[in-house]
């Protein structure tokens, strides 16, 4: 019996699952901040596309934000569109390409500030697209400014003392608005701040895409993601801060599911 040498690494070296790059990424290099939740959320989307065998028929429409980098490094036919307009652009794409899996990727500034009109109408028209909202309650790409989902008390560069209802009004819960619209078949909100939430969120994304391919109507998954830079909190506190601020304000879960 050969004895194992405990003073050297095993041959061949064990492979850590966490370093495995998904096929749908052309590169795993990006410039996002340490602690950013977007790469985690995007990973779930890519893994789901592969699981559902949609890799060769997906079209991605991405808005403007830090997450646009996810579009750039992904191996998906992509269109970068005007701020807020992704659901309208997706409408034109899906109507001409009904067999494609059409996804929109927007942040809260893009969808809920600039593009509230577009997403509500796409839902009303029951467009068979899946709209993804990566919501971190702040305009991260421009340096950390208030959006329509910034929570009360959150400091940003345009609400330095913390968002205050009398001065800045209240955040909008777009998922709740969409859940009331008949054309919306599936509306859910997840988060990526804990392993448990990550698993739940992946199931939401999967459900949304399955329903799109079944022609059920408009599907929507909001993912609460971390932005420690925009939130002015230390990197490592991002996940906990998300729970205390965004989850506290908006909650998570499936807000609307198809009957039966």
């Amino acid at each position, binding site marked *: 019996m050969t004895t194992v040498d405990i003073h050297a690494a095993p041959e061949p070296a064990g492979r850590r699952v966490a370093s495995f790059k998904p*096929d*749908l990424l*052309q*590169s795993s*290099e990006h410039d996002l901040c340490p602690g950013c939740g977007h790469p985690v959320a995007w990973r779930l989307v890519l893994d789901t596309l592969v699981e559902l065998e949609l*890799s*060769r*028929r*997906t*079209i991605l*429409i991405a808005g403007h934000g830090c997450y646009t980098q996810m*579009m*750039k*490094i*992904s*191996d*998906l*036919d*992509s*269109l*970068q*569109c*005007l701020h807020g*307009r992704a659901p*309208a*652009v*997706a*409408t*034109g*794409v899906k*109507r*001409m*390409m009904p067999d*494609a*899996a059409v996804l929109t990727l927007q942040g809260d500034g893009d969808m809920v500030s600039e593009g509230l*009109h*577009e997403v509500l*109408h796409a839902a009303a*028209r029951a467009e068979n697209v899946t709209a993804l909202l990566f919501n971190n309650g702040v305009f991260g790409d421009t340096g950390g400014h208030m959006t329509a989902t910034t929570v009360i008390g959150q400091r940003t560069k345009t609400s330095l003392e913390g968002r205050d209802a009398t001065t800045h009004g209240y955040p909008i819960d777009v998922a709740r608005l969409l859940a009331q619209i008949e054309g919306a078949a599936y509306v859910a909100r997840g988060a990526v701040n804990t392993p448990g939430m990550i698993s739940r969120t992946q199931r939401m994304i999967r459900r949304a895409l399955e329903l799109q391919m079944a022609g059920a109507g408009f599907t929507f998954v909001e993912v609460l993601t971390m932005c420690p830079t925009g939130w002015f909190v230390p990197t490592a506190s991002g996940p906990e801060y998300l729970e205390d601020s965004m989850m506290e304000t908006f909650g998570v879960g499936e807000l609307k599911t198809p009957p039966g």
Partner: protein
Amino acid sequence: MAPRLMQGSDAVADAAIVAGCRFFTGYPMLPFTELLENMAKKLPAAGGVCINAESEIEAINMALGAAATGARAATGSCGQGVSLMQEGIAELALNELPLVVFTMARGQQDYFQSTRGGGWGDYRTITLAPRDIPEAVVHTQLLFHLADLYRTPVIFYGDYVIAHTSVGIDVEELDFGPLPSKDHWALDGTMSGTGQARQIWTWARGKPNTPGPGPNQSWVTIADKYAEIERTEQRYETYRAEGAETLVVSFGTTSVFVDRVVDELREEGVSIGSFRPITLWPFPTVGLAEATRGCRRVLVYELNAGQMVDDVRMYAEDRSVIRSIGGVSQDTSGMRQGDLLNADELRTRIRRAVAESTAVGS
């Protein structure tokens, strides 16, 4: 086929459909509304999609999405609605996506909007201004061709009169020649997961496997493309202008009135002709310089406070002979050209201009 009585909006809709348009969207707004109604009625039967958009901003962006898949797509509005589409038109241009935008103008001749645009960046739109419904039917099909040929948004400049007038007409399908394939850029999802996924992005950065030229080189290339179009796609028409002392310059519906008055005044022995830009952009600079050479007076008749006259001044060799004889003119509804769209009024203004500059010392 025998001619049928068709409203302009109806004939244009048929022309768009025979040209292969399969996606149309818009927001009802007079005098664009009938075009939307006609497409809503006819496009689905032709295998296309017509959506009543909830806003003009939605419309231009939906149309952009459809165009990105390689489909022939169109949208439009009146000048007020096209104002909201400016960002979208610029985005189409800088993404090199083809689209036909139908501007059905109200009372004012929106020359600046249709040739300068209010979007960002260095872009132009090929803009055709038909004078009547038969020309509108030809231009509609030509615009779909030019949009695909050059990968650019283009503008059909129509108005209340063209949209609402009815004439006997037969819409014939026209072939303007071969076009490059869209396969290498149009998105259909099939290149996803192959390592060579396509991407449409105004910053043209590409993806890691297929790096792009970046915004600088991409926009330089696009600017060069428009410079080339400017050289090669100028179109215009002159009427009885050979040796004319007086030249009247106008575009669109207005030019029909001008040519009628030119005939009447010629009967009286007045030395007069007309010049009509057909492409508002690229403005027919060469044609205009030739036509105005040696004229005693160049009278610009447009129904606005003076827009096309700027281009006439820029390209005529002798600026001193140029005068504006048009003006702002709205009818009481605010939706249509007013009292200046009138042959009698035009004749009066031409006579006055001729008399004033024939006087001693001028």
